[in-house]
């Protein structure tokens, strides 16, 4: 569903038009389920988070002042429901990964870096490759530290703005940018390894 359609459903619900109810529920159930399953790790927990989140959403719907931010508003409630489910902070500060660790293959001479990059030219044209890479992305998200995972899901998968993600996760915008960059570099690294393993590298200078 397009963002505009989602906002329209929120507007209709605010105006007291219950015909938007089922579409809104279906749409956000899938979104919240995906987020909570990745953040909580269990299907049962995720199902509960979905129901608890939507209950709070409807209970407080009148407090949604700006329907254009409905997605961010729902995800903030979902994030809090995930926190309660985990009974410990999954967003507790952890030390950021150093960028040096995320740079491509390091060289050794005179403190200089050498980078090695796979052949990415098959993307986006190759449909099969694209769908394989979606599975690689699942693995990349599952393996990354939780503080990066939540930022990537909200910012790049849900396409919320830096400011919205900062509000949802109680972070400042610089922290969101720092974490997003590291999350993307981790995903990129995973894609790159996959592309290298699946194709014969070509030497070029």
């Amino acid at each position, binding site marked *: 569903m397009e963002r505009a359609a989602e906002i329209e459903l929120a507007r209709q*619900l605010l105006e*007291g038009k*219950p015909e938007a*109810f089922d579409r809104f*529920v*279906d749409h956000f*159930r*899938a979104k919240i*389920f*995906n987020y909570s*399953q990745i953040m909580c790790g269990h*299907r049962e927990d*995720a*199902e509960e988070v*979905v*129901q608890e989140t939507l*209950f709070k959403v*409807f*209970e*407080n*719907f*009148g407090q949604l002042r700006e329907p254009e931010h409905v997605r961010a508003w729902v995800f903030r409630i979902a994030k809090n429901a995930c926190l309660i489910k985990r009974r410990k902070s999954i967003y507790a500060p952890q030390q950021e990964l150093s*960028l040096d660790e995320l*740079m*491509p293959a390091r*060289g050794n001479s005179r403190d*200089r*870096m*050498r*980078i*090695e*990059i796979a*052949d*990415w030219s098959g*993307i*986006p044209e190759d449909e099969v490759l*694209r769908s394989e*890479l*979606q*599975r690689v*992305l*699942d693995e990349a998200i599952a393996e990354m530290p939780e503080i990066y995972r939540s930022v*990537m899901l909200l910012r*790049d*998968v849900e*396409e919320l703005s*830096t400011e919205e993600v900062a509000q949802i996760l109680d972070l400042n915008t610089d922290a969101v*940018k720092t974490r997003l*960059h590291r999350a*993307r*570099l981790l*995903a*990129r690294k995973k*894609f790159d390894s996959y592309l*290298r393993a699946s194709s014969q*590298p*070509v*030497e*070029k*200078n």
Partner: protein
Amino acid sequence: MSTHQHDENCKKMFALLSEYLDMELPVDLCEEMDAHIAGCEPCAAFTESLRKTIELCHEYQPKELPGPLARDARRKLLEAYEKMLAGRRS
């Protein structure tokens, strides 16, 4: 596969690449990055790979969906919504 002797400029731009691709950098820094990338083939290739990474994230489709919504669960949600509406009217 390309190899490249990475210098300090490359390291600096490496740190700013996401903000660059999200167009969140101030104009002067953005122009500096444009100029560097135009003259540095490995950085251009790396930037392109990161841009494609973001594109793949935008296309992400969840592999699992929640089970069907139980009638009772739907009723509870609808009740919460109707109660909220009634509260606003009163």
